[in-house]
C-alpha cells in the first residue's frame, strides 16, 4: 500500500492540483497541517477544519486517512517520511520556498522519498 504525505495550505489548491494527481490511486494519505509557531488561534482552527474536511473527502475516495498538525518547519516532516516509509511527499510550493537557500539542499538531501510541489 502506497503512503502519501500531503501538506495542506489552501483547500482550493489541494482540490485543483493534488486531487487529480491522486485520482485512481489507492493507499494511505497523511494530511498534515504545517503552521508557524506564531499562528493565532483562528488560523490554527481554520487549518484543523481544513484537515477534517479533506479527511472526509479523501476517505470517500477510498483512502485510509490520518491527520496531524505541526507548529514547525518542513524539516519536521523528514522524520515522519522516514518512519512511515512514505512514497511521496506532496507539499505546497510556498512551504518549500519558505526555506532558507542553504536549507533547500539539506532538506532534499535528507528527504527519503520523491517530492511533489504544487
Amino acid at each position, binding site marked *: 500500500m502506497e503512503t502519501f504525505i500531503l501538506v495542506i495550505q489552501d483547500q482550493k489548491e489541494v482540490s485543483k492540483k493534488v486531487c487529480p494527481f491522486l485520482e485512481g490511486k489507492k493507499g494511505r494519505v497523511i494530511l498534515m497541517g504545517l503552521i508557524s509557531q506564531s499562528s493565532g488561534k483562528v488560523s*490554527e*482552527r481554520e487549518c*484543523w477544519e481544513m484537515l*477534517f474536511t479533506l479527511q472526509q473527502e479523501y476517505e470517500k475516495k477510498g483512502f485510509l486517512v490520518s491527520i*496531524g*498538525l505541526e507548529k514547525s518547519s518542513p524539516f519536521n516532516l*523528514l*522524520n515522519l517520511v522516514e518512519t512511515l516509509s512514505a512514497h511521496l511527499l506532496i507539499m505546497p510550493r510556498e512551504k518549500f520556498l519558505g526555506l*532558507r537557500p542553504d536549507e533547500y539542499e539539506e532538506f532534499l*538531501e535528507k528527504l527519503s522519498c520523491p517530492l511533489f510541489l504544487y
Partner: protein
Amino acid sequence: MPDDFDLRDIFSPDLIFIHPQLKTKEEVFEFIATKLQEAGEITVDQVKTIVAALKERESLGSTGIGKEIAIPHITCKGITKLIGSALLIEEGIDWGSLDGKPVRLLVFLFAPEEKRDEYLSTLAEVARVLHIPEQLKGILRAKNPDNIYELLTGIYKEQRFIRYQRFLYFGVGLIIFFLLAKITFTHVKIPPLPIYQKLGALHFNEPFWINREIFSTTLFFSMVLGTLLFFQYRVAIGGLALSLLLISGVMDIEMTVKFMSIPTILFIIAVMVIVKWLEEKGVFKFLVLHGLRYFHNSPWLLFSALMLFSALLAGLVDEVSAILITLGIAVEIARRTKVGVIPYLLSLVMATNIGSALTLIGNPIGIYLGFASKLTFLDFLKNSTPIAITTVLIVILIALLFYRREVKKSVGVDIKELEEKVSIPSKGELRLAIIVFLLFITLVVFHTFLEKLLQVEERTVLLALPLGIVGFIVFKEQERGRYLIEKGPDWWTILYFMCLFASAACLEYTGVTVKIAYLLTKAAKLLPLTLFGNLAESASILTFLLWGSGLFSGFVDNLPIVAALVPVVKNLVASGMPGANLFWWSLLIGGCFGGNLTMIGSTANLVAIGVYERSYRRHFPFKRWLFLGIIVTFVSLFFANCLLLLKLRTNP
C-alpha cells in the same frame, strides 16, 4: 469564523470520565455508548449503532492525532444536537496515531447528519484546544472529570490566567527589587577610606545618587526578569528600559551610546558573519569529520574525540555553531549504529558549554569581558584555556562512565561514508575558507603584538581584523554578501545586547556596582577562606563570583549577570585587592560552566534540544538532563574553583 468558541455548549461534566481499566478500542466504544444512553442522549437501541459507527469510522483511518489524543467523531441519524464526551484512560491504547504514541485521551464528537458545518468547526476547535501544551498536560494529569471539563472548555479563562500570571510575577518581582534596592542603598554607605576617595565614589552616598541607584537597580533586574518571563519580547523590554533611563535623566544620549559598548557589538556582528560564511563553505564539518577519521576504529575514542572537537570548536568559533555541527554528526552516528542520540547530545552540549570558555571569542561573555576588562586573547590562553581544557577532559571521563553501555554499542561507524554525505560547494572555495579561518585565528591570537607593532590603541587590531575579513567576504561573494550580512548575525540578539550593555553600564555610572563591590568585600571579611592567609578575602570573593555566576547562569542567560558583575570586578581590581585579576576568570568560567545545569542554561542547550525535537519528533526528557547536568556543573565548578584558588595562591 468566530475568534471565541464556546465548547460548553457541546460538552457537559456528566459525559466526562476517567477510567483506569479500559484496554481495547471495543471496550472504549462500548463504555462511551452506554454512558451516552445512561445520560439520556441516545436510546438503548442506538447503543449498538453508535458502537458500530465508531468502529467503522476507525476502519477508514485512525482518529488519533498524536500527542496521546484521539478524536473519534461520527455523524449519525437519531441524534438531534452535537454531543461531546471525553474519556481519560490510565494506560494508553494503540490507536495507530501518526507519532506512534498510544492514546490516553479520547474526545468524542457525535453529530446529526444535517449539522455538518458546525460539526467540522467544533472538531477543529477541539483539536486546537488539545494542541495547547499546557492545556493537554493539565488534562492528562487530571484527577477528576471536573478538571478535564474546566480545561477543555475554559480555555480562554485559562490562557488569560497564564498570561496574567506572568504579569503578576513581573509586578511582584518589580516590587521586591525596588524594596531590596531601597533598603540596600539607603543603608549601605561607602566609608571615607582613601581607596574610595581615589575611586571618587564617596558622592554615591548623597540622596540624589541613592535615588538613581534604586531606580537603575530596579530597572536592570526587572529587565532581566522581564526577559525571562517574556523572552520573545526581550528587545521590546530592553528598549523600554533604555528609554526609561533616558527620559528619567539618569543617562544622556552620549552616555547611552558609550555604554552600549559599540566595539564589542561590532566584533560580535563581524564574527557572526565570518562564522556564517565559513559554515556555508563547509569548513567546520570538514575539519571535524577529517579529525574524526583517526578515531573511528574505537567507539570510546570516537565519542571522546567528538566531545573534544565540540569543545575546541566552541572555543574557536562559538557554542551554537559548534553544537549544530557536532550534533549533526552525532545524529548520523546514532542512526547508523541504532544507539539513542541522547547520550551524544548531552555529552556534546556539555563539552560545548565548557569549551566556550576556552578563548575570548568562544562566548559573548568572553568577548564582553575581553573588551570591558582589556584582557587580551593571550590572557585568555594563559588563564581560562588550561582550566577549560582540563575540565573538558574530566567531563569526557564522566560522560564515558555514565554512557559506557551506549558508547560500547556504537561500533562500525564509517567516517568516510559520512564525509561523502557532507556537501562541500567546491574544494577551491573550501581551501580559501580554511586559509581565512586559520589567518583569522592566528591574527586574533597575536592582536596585542600587532597593536604594539603598528603603534595603535589596544584592541584596535582585534576589532579591525574581523571587520576587514567581513569586507573581504562581502566583496568576494558579491550578491551573496548581502545575504550573509542580513542572515549571519542574529540581529534580534544584537539589539538586545546593546540595551543590556547600556543598562548594565548604567549600574556602574550610578554607583551601584561600587556599593556591591564594597558589600562583597565586607561579606568576604565575615566569611574568609582562612586557609589562604592574607589572600583569604580574595579567595572568598573568587569562590563567591564563580559559584554565584555559575548557579545563576543555570537558570537565566549568563550575559546579564556577567554584564552586571563586570563593573563590580572592575572596582575590586581598582581597589588594589590582591589577586583581584583572577575574578575575571571566575565570572567567565562560572558563566560558561553554569550553563550545563539546566536545559535553559545556555543558547547551545536550547539549540541542541531544538535539533533533537525536530529530528525525533518528541520532547526532550527533562530528568535525563537534570541528573547529568547537576553532576557535570558541580564537578566542573568545583574543579575550576580548586584550580583558580591554586592560581591565586601561587601567582596572586
